[in-house]
């Protein structure tokens, strides 16, 4: 099986500081892969490199056969690379409904259509309602985003990413700030996404990581320390040393 996403020697320097260094990461079709590592290891930066927020100083990124390294962020998104942000990045003055409709209409390439009323696009509204329903946000569909509680905003982050019907979904701590039972549900929803969607997620909640990932990559100081199945990673003393600590004995 060929990888959907593959990096070779990927790296970026901020001044003299190598935030991400020589990373070779592959994402298989249908992957449910976790990316873990200490704070400041470079996980978010890696996602920013993959999605084109930053331009790498070293290495390449391929999506299937296509090289992405030089493409702009929006172009990558249109090719099916969707993400959520660690720090909420939403449309504060829109409602959740309009936010999702916006994502859908951009996905369908209608963002420049200025000669037809939005309302005419019934399908987008229906789809948006359905998506919000799945994330239990339908009751809040018409509340301005700025007034939503933090946890609900986290959910909307995911809704926006899913609205793009991505081939690859990159989630940066999606469950942070979501209560435990709901974060479980959230991850179940992610796990049940169609198998042709590959998911890479960053998460510091080890319950979720070990429950939902099939493969784990550990990033330390910008480099991949090790990769493997949850069981292998849970046993790895180096990972315990720098990241898991002793409380993770249960894993």
């Amino acid at each position, binding site marked *: 099986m060929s990888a959907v996403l593959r990096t070779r020697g990927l790296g970026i320097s*901020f001044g003299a500081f190598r935030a991400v260094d020589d990373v070779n990461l592959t994402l298989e079709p249908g992957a449910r892969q976790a990316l873990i*590592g*200490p*704070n*400041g*290891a*470079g*996980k*978010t*930066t890696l996602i920013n490199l993959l999605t084109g927020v930053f331009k790498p100083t070293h290495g390449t990124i391929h999506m299937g056969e296509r090289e992405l390294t030089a493409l702009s962020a929006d172009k990558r998104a249109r090719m099916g690379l969707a993400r959520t942000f*660690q*720090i*909420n990045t939403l449309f504060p003055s829109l409602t959740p409904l309009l936010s999702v409709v916006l994502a859908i209409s951009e996905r369908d390439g209608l963002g420049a259509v200025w000669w037809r009323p939005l309302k005419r696009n019934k399908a987008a509204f229906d789809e948006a309602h359905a998506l919000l329903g799945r994330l239990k946000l339908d009751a809040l569909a018409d509340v301005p985003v700025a*007034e*939503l*509680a*933090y*946890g*609900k905003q986290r959910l909307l982050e995911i809704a926006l990413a899913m609205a793009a019907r991505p081939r690859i979904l990159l989630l*940066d*701590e999606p469950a*942070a*700030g*979501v*209560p*435990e*039972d*709901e974060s479980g549900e959230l991850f179940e929803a992610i796990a049940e996404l169609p198998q042709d969607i590959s998911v890479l997620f960053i998460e*510091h909640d*080890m*319950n979720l990581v070990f429950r939902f990932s099939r493969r784990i990559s550990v990033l330390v100081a910008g480099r991949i320390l090790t990769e493997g199945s949850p069981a292998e990673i849970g046993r790895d003393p180096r990972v315990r040393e*720098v*990241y*898991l*600590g*002793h*409380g*993770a004995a*249960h894993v």
Partner: protein
Amino acid sequence: MSEMLAFDQVVAGYGNAVVLDRLSFALAQGQSLAILGRNGVGKTTLLETLMGNTRVMRGALRWCGEDITRWPAHRRVRAGLGWVPQEREVFPSLTVEENLTVIGRPGPWNLQRVYQFFPRLRERRGNYGNQLSGGEQQMLAIGRALMTNPKLLLLDEPMEGLAPIIVEELARSIRHLCESEGLASIVVEQHPVLALEMTHQAIVLERGTVVHAGPSAALAGDASLLEGLLGVGMTDVQA
């Protein structure tokens, strides 16, 4: 023991919207408090109210015997409240070091001690606030609050985004600070077990009002009560 902090029938919210509805509780000197509750029940709003960032429509806040309901935020800080906002909100155009020193006040906490507490921050001392990872921002927000040398630390989901090993250390440290230096804290958490371990007392909020108050240990020990209040299956958490 004398009272440190009290909410007395507080009604508060944003604009015309009421979020806290006749909320009351009291906390004794040197005691730590866990605030639990589902998304959107008003935990953050409670802390924002304590910092004077909401509109208090009725009721009063007392701090060490004084009515602080109308005090401006900076005065509350000087009186001993140290705040870690939920979304961290470090100052993006200040370096890590400036973030820490800009509001420093004399006391046991100084730059060196914060750096000792979070060695990662020392490494990143020259980075600007917006050039930090999420976890580093969280550490910085906590460090910044410590630098004001508070008597009561207000932590709004402080563990969010921190690596497990750091979470463990931090929880231990906060408990230790309370016991050895009398630095109390109010901890808002999504993970009840963690919060209850760190605190003496706990309250559970629902729709802006207190539905349960009692010692943390008792609540932690009563799985079915917790289940009822929070809807959390406690069994699979940190067995």
